[in-house]
């Protein structure tokens, strides 16, 4: 294999593995804020127990997220040096801002979140939890800013610097709020909230099935299902606006998502199907006009097809199509699952419906696969460009790095990441089997000093 293929496999594999963890950190961050907030509000000790238990899971995902995240930052330079020279002026600022505004906040207050339980007051601890959650969200903001700029570049000009062309910032806020950023960010965040919420739902459903820690499981399900339902509904909304933004900013990508070869009015939406790349058509169930409607809010407006682009400017159609449709299918399934779970939970009969509990146990895989598929669709659909319309992927490679060197690092990372994943699953399973600590029902240290006790005496 050549350097290009190996470098693309390496970047794809390392970023896909990395992306198992940040959504869990963001989503569990939201869950921790809800749980601890509920504890402060209701004083119900089970919420304290929940916050303590999920903090341990959070720590596990966070550590691997940090460890695998540095790899990404280094790879822009090691494998994509020419790309880095071209975009450093624009792209580098977003990464540096991520460090300053997000990572410091996250990792600094993580110390208090994990180890400060007995050392600080309730309010300080809750504040730290909020800051960790905010930091995790900020990191999503900046990294999506950077990636969206690669999808819909704005706020820059091309300048010759030392005889080499590069992109230079002309308007920082146009770089940040580039045309696809807000839609993509909201879509990414909803996906992350789903990842965290469905993890909580899955573990709680399993406890109910095994008739263990039932009070804990019910309280966790209440918070988990509510967040899961809201997140998956919002996911459909943000997914719709993101797709419209793709149609506007990257029409070739949208055409590949839908396998639309001919520019047509009354364009059909494929619900499920398969691209016949040779005959340039899609086999499957189609609804006439729906794609036109979704893209332009009108059944008759034409949607740009792949025929508007030279063959060398088209993304791989089959892969884009399948990843995109896989993501959408999972998204709608998750809405159904969380809605059913929520309704039966409100009805009080969820614990009797073992079939639904089993579905909820496995629902944790849904957001994970949908998040991965979504990113694969977004990045495969951007091809053949590394920066859409500006730089082709092969032109971004490091000039001096050889295939055997990349192969070495690829083998090394693959080996290490399999090891990490095995250990992660082993430890996660261990924590879940062990379950919440009964000792956590009673807050200790400074947290045990209830500020309302003194107030009670007064009243």
């Amino acid at each position: 294999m050549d350097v290009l293929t190996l470098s693309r496999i390496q970047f794809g594999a390392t970023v896909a593995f990395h992306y198992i963890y940040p959504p869990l950190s963001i989503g569990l961050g939201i869950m921790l804020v809800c749980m601890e907030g509920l504890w402060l509000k209701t004083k119900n000790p089970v919420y304290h127990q929940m916050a303590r238990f999920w903090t341990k899971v959070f720590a596990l995902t966070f550590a691997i997220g940090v460890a695998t995240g540095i790899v990404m930052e280094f790879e822009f330079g090691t494998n994509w040096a020419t790309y880095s020279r071209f975009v450093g002026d624009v792209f580098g600022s977003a990464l540096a801002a991520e460090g300053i505004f997000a990572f410091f906040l996250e990792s600094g207050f993580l110390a208090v979140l994990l180890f400060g339980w007995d050392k600080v007051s309730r309010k300080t601890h809750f504040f730290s939890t909020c800051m960790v959650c905010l930091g995790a969200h900020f990191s999503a903001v900046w990294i999506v800013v950077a990636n969206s700029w690669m999808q819909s570049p704005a706020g820059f000009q091309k300048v010759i610097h030392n005889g080499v062309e590069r992109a230079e910032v002309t308007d920082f806020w146009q770089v940040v709020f580039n045309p696809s950023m807000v839609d993509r960010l909201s879509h990414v965040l909803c996906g992350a909230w789903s990842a965290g919420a469905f993890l909580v739902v899955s573990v709680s459903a399993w406890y109910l099935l095994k008739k263990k820690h039932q009070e804990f499981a019910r309280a966790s399900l209440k918070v988990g299902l509510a967040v899961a339902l809201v997140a998956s509904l919002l996911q459909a909304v943000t997914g719709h606006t993101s797709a419209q933004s793709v149609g506007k900013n990257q029409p070739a990508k949208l055409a590949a998502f839908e396998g639309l070869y001919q520019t047509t009015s009354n364009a059909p939406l494929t619900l499920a199907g398969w691209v016949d790349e040779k005959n340039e058509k899609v086999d499957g169930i189609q609804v006439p006009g729906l794609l036109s409607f979704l893209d332009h809010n009108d059944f008759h407006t034409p949607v740009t097809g792949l025929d508007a682009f030279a063959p060398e400017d088209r993304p791989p159609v089959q892969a884009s199509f399948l990843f995109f449709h896989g993501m959408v299918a999972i998204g709608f399934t998750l809405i159904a699952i969380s809605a059913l779970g929520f309704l039966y939970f409100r009805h009080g009969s969820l614990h009797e419906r073992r079939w639904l509990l089993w579905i909820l146990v496995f629902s944790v895989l849904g957001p994970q696969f949908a998040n991965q598929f979504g990113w694969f669709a977004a990045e495969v659909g951007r091809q053949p460009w590394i920066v859409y319309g500006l730089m082709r992927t092969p032109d971004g490679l490091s000039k001096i790095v050889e295939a055997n060197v990349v192969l070495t690092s690829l083998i090394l990372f693959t080996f290490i990441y399999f090891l990490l994943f095995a250990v992660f699953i082993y430890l996660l399973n261990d924590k879940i089997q062990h379950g919440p600590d009964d000792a956590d029902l009673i807050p200790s240290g400074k947290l045990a000093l209830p500020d309302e006790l003194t107030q009670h005496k007064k009243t």
Partner: protein
Amino acid sequence: MTFDLNTIWFILVGVLFTGYAILDGFDLGIGALHLFTKKDEERRIMLNAIGPVWDGNEVWLVTGGGALFAAFPNVYATAFSGFYLALVLLLVALIFRAVAIEFRSKQPMRWWRQMWDIGFSAGSILSSLLIGVALGNIAWGVPIDASGEFAGTFLGLLKPYPLLVGVTTVALFMMHGAIYGVMKTEGELHGKLRVWTMRCIIFFVICAVTLTMATLLYVPHMAARVREHPWLFSIALANMLSIANIPREFHHENDGRAFLSSCATIITLMALFALNIFPNLIYSLPNPENSLTIHNAASSPKTLGIMLIIAIIGVPIVIAYTICIYWIFRGKVKMDRMSY
């Protein structure tokens, strides 16, 4: 010397990497010393001494890397693609260190803990060594071609001088970490760490003297600026005095002051390094005219200005809450249910 945006960013990137060396330096040092104690309880105390803070400390490296990418993209691209294998090794070392801290005490089995202990220690030593070797290569000079690309080989990076800088970095971090460990522990382990600290100080002084001699003899351009401006010798003098002050304070059991002297040692060493490479960021040997400087490798003035605003807003906030967090976790390590 004009004080333009490029110079300011040279200093800021230097500050970020110095911050990294001071903060993660003691984490890496604790890691390097980790296997010297055989007792599980003592290893746990060592881990928990850095437990709440190592993660935030590593962010200084991540942010330093981001700042280098943003301010001097050509340096970032040349160095990272040129030092490919070395950086992959550094990544592997940092990954093992990070997950070993998190995983180690999660299971009681002996083989499990031993495995992650080795991962933690080897990861820490290898990280320190590679960071030092990278600095050593930048001091010595690396082959750069006319288009600004690295023109050497991986093995070419392992010359004696860079390796000496690498070993000195390991020694420096071990000393720094040992003193930090003394501050955070009590009882038997505290006594052990006192003995190790003295040995680490001796190890570091031997390395530092050898490195100084080697630099003056073989890398004369790394003393050029101080030679031209004799008043800068005051920094070299300050460096010598802060090194000498470490054993002095340590002997009087002023551990906090010994630690501050160790910090001052790192700051003055980095200052000497930065002063002598300025305005180069990567010195090209054998063709100095191909060197990557703060001007030919920089982003546009507009971006440097925007980044400066980001830094002015962000850095004071970061420093403020970092100090608060260190304050919360001050004093000796106390183990509880949440500890590693």
